[in-house]
């Protein structure tokens, strides 16, 4: 239960960062949303990468920054969690 809550907390924190780049508030963003549908185009996607790195003090490797693999909110959440769980 505690691990589940912690996971949800991390997801929420990541979504908060996403909402700081998107015109949508965190309450209006769900894991299933495609980034394009929440106002995150290709340029904002990079801005989001930098925002997540700064918010969680992580540095993504170039190989993980493939725009083709980062299409939805859940893609970003999974990527961030991969680094946060290291």
């Amino acid at each position, binding site marked *: 239960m505690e691990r589940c809550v912690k996971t949800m907390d991390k997801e929420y924190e990541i979504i908060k960062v996403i909402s700081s780049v998107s*015109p949508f508030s965190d309450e209006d963003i769900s894991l299933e949303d*495609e980034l*394009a*549908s929440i*106002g995150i*185009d*290709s*340029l904002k*996607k*990079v*801005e989001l*990468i*930098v925002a997540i790195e700064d918010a969680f003090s992580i540095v993504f490797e*170039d190989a993980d*920054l*493939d*725009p*083709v693999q980062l299409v939805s909110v859940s893609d970003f959440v999974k990527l961030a969690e991969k680094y946060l769980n290291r």
Partner: protein
Amino acid sequence: MKNIDVDLSRFNSFQSLSCVESYLLYILSTNNYDYRYLYALSYVSFSEIMNYFFNERKRFEYYNGVPRLQQIASKYNIILIKDFDKLSINIDSKHDYYLLRLCPEYIEETYGEVTWRDDHYVLLANYNDSMWTYINDDPRDCRTLNYNEMLTAYAGSLIRIDLVSGITDKMKDLLLQGFLDSMSENKKTFSIPSVDDIIAARNALAVLRILRRRIYEYCFQFICCDFMVDYLNELDKQFSLIEYMRLRNRVNYSKIDNMFSTLQQKDSKIIEAINGKMCENYG
């Protein structure tokens, strides 16, 4: 004026260089046009794009290396397009679609950001005496304002678009010929300058990725273009990496020069392959 069904996800599919192009594609797609035929005249060489940004030092938002989609649609009599400077929002219901120019101040206040150009337009989806609904391409948005709010947001210019004709077989043939001619004519090649401007580098890649995706989508109607996919994805990735360098202030021009050199070689092979396959089948 025709009412428009609002489906912002349509914008995901468009390869546009401007808001007007986005709205034109939106209009055409909602009317079941295969707008990909308009992408036929989108070939420009890698070196021409580099010349535009690094020798001529021009800007993305005014890129004129290919004709705008609305110019092509107008030339082939698919649409009639006219722009007006009008202080009042004068909608003549006999005409099909209207784009309204919005004040930069309204855009910044509403969306918290500044647009690429001062002349940003929205597509009027529907209106009545009291409510005006528009669609914005970037950021994607559908918004309803009352008349006074709309007047405040309005910047004094309209673009009117009327649909005239479908894309006929004759137009498709002409566009195909235009494509083949553009791929084969001996254009002046430019020496590729060293990259010394990170924003120009990013914008050059922005144009290249849009125009190459247009070629992909256009040609896919005629030949299998799967061989382009890896290259298109690489363009997206390099575009992101350059923007990342810029935001992190870790610009490495030597790395970018190598990147562009590699991309140019790949681009050249891709274009040669496209040209070969298209000419073999349709030349």
